[in-house]
C-alpha cells in the first residue's frame, strides 16, 4: 500500500501578526474514501523525507523513487517562501521560518544529489532494471531522472566511440557498458534500526563451515547485516538504515 500524502491546506493569510502564522495544517478526511491514500501532516512528511534521505544515503543501490514526498515537500517550501515574501522584513519569525526552509532544502537536495551520484555510478544497470520492470512495480527513477540517465548513457557511448572505439579495428568497436560498469555491491554490510518487528529473516552463511540460520528482528533493535538480506524490508519501510 503506497502512502500518498495529501495536498495539505494552508491558511490563506500571510505572515500578519494578528492572523494565523504561516502554514496551518488541517488533516482533511479523504474525500474519495479510498483506502490507498494516507494523510500526512507536514511534520510527518518531513520525517518521511529524512527517512528516505538516510535510507538512500546508506543503501548500496538506488532505491525506489518517492515522487509524492518530493512533490509535497517542494509544495510546502514554495508555499512558505511565498508567505515569507509577503511578510514584513526584520521580523524574528521570518528568520526562523527562513532557517527551517534552508534546513529542509538541504535535506531535499542532499537526497536528490545522492540519487544522482548513484545513477551516474550504475547507469547501465539502473536503466536495465527500469526496462525490465513489471507493469505494477514501482519505478526506481522519476521521469526526470530517467531522462537524465538515458542522456548520460548516450553521452558516454558517444564519448567512448569518438575518443577510442572508432580508432579500433572493426571487430573490437563494440563495448558492453552493462558488462564493464561495476554493479552495485548488494553484499555490503549496513547498520539498521528495526521499525516494525520481523520474524524469520534468513541469514546466509559466510563460509562453508557455517550453516544458514534465521533471526527475528525486534522493534527498536539495531543490527549489522548484509544489505541483500534486508533489501525488501528497506523498501517496505520496516527497517531504517543508520
Amino acid at each position: 500500500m503506497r502512502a500518498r500524502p495529501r495536498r495539505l491546506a494552508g491558511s490563506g493569510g500571510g505572515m500578519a501578526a494578528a492572523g494565523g502564522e504561516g502554514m496551518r495544517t488541517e488533516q482533511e478526511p479523504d474525500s474519495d474514501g479510498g483506502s490507498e491514500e494516507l494523510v500526512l501532516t507536514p511534520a510527518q512528511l518531513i520525517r518521511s523525507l529524512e527517512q528516505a534521505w538516510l535510507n538512500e544515503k546508506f543503501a548500496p543501490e538506488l532505491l525506489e523513487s518517492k515522487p509524492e514526498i518530493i512533490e509535497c515537500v517542494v509544495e510546502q517550501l514554495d508555499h512558505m517562501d511565498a508567505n515569507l515574501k509577503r511578510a514584513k522584513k526584520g521580523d524574528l519569525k521570518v528568520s526562523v521560518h527562513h532557517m527551517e526552509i534552508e534546513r529542509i532544502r538541504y535535506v531535499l537536495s542532499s537526497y536528490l544529489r545522492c540519487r544522482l551520484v548513484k545513477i551516474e555510478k550504475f547507469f547501465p544497470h539502473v536503466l536495465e532494471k527500469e526496462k525490465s520492470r513489471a507493469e505494477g512495480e514501482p519505478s526506481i527513477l522519476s521521469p526526470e531522472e530517467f531522462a537524465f540517465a538515458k542522456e548520460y548513457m548516450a553521452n558516454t557511448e558517444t564519448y567512448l566511440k569518438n575518443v577510442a572505439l572508432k580508432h579500433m579495428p572493426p571487430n573490437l568497436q563494440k563495448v558492453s557498458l552493462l558488462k564493464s560498469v561495476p554493479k552495485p555491491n548488494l553484499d555490503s554490510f549496513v547498520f539498521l534500526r528495526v521499525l516494525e518487528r520481523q520474524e524469520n529473516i534468513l541469514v546466509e552463511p559466510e563460509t562453508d563451515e557455517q550453516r544458514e540460520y534465521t533471526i527475528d528482528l525486534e522493534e527498536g533493535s539495531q543490527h549489522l547485516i548484509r544489505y541483500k538480506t534486508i533489501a525488501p524490508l528497506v523498501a517496505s519501510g520496516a527497517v531504517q538504515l543508520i
Partner: protein
Amino acid sequence: MDPAAGSGALWVGLRRRSANGEGGRGTRRVRVRCRRGPPGCRAPGTMEPAEAEFLAEKELVTIVPNFSLDRIHLIGGDLGPFNPGLPVEVPVWLAINLKQRQKCRLIPPEWMDVEKLEEIRDQERKEDTFTPMPSPYYMELTKLLLNYASDNIPKADEIRTLVKDTWDTRIAKLRLSADSFVKQQEAHAKVRWGRLERFASSVLGVFQMPCDCVGL
C-alpha cells in the same frame, strides 16, 4: 590499534586474511584513511560528521528567552509561545541561533552534569559492552552547546573532557568488535547494548573494504 586521531584523519588498522582462512600469503595489515572530500560528496554509505551534527540539531533543548513572541507554526511543528523569563523547548538549531543573537539563555540538558558523566565514563571503562547513553547525539550536542553556550554551562571544560573520554572508549570497543566480526566472518551482528552513535556507520565506513578483501 591506533588511537583515534584528533585531526580528522582516521586510521583503522585491520588484518586481512585470505578467504580460505589459512595464512595463505600471510596476514597483512590494511590501513585505510578516510578521505576528506568537499562536504556532501563522499561515497554513499557514509555519514559525515557535519551531517551527524545536522541531525543532532533537531533534538530539543530548553532555553529561557528574553523576548516575547507568539506561537510559530513551522513546517516541522509548532514552537513557542515565547515569554521573557519562561523556559521553553526548541530545537538546538534555533537555540544556538537565538543564543548567538543574544536573545536567550541556554539550559544544559540534565545529563550534561559532571557527576553523571563521570559515572557514565567509569561504567563505560568497566564494562565490555556499550553503556546506554543519555542521548544518541551526546557527542554532537556536547560540541555544539559547549561551543556556543559555554557560559551557560557550569564546568564546561570538565564536561568536554569527560565526554571525549567516553567517546574514545566507545569507539575503541566498536573497532574491536568490528575487527572480530570480520575475522570470524560473521554474517550478522545485533547491537545488544543501547544505541550506537550515528557516527558509528561512518567510523566503520571502511567496513566494506575488509569484507571485500576477504572475498566474502
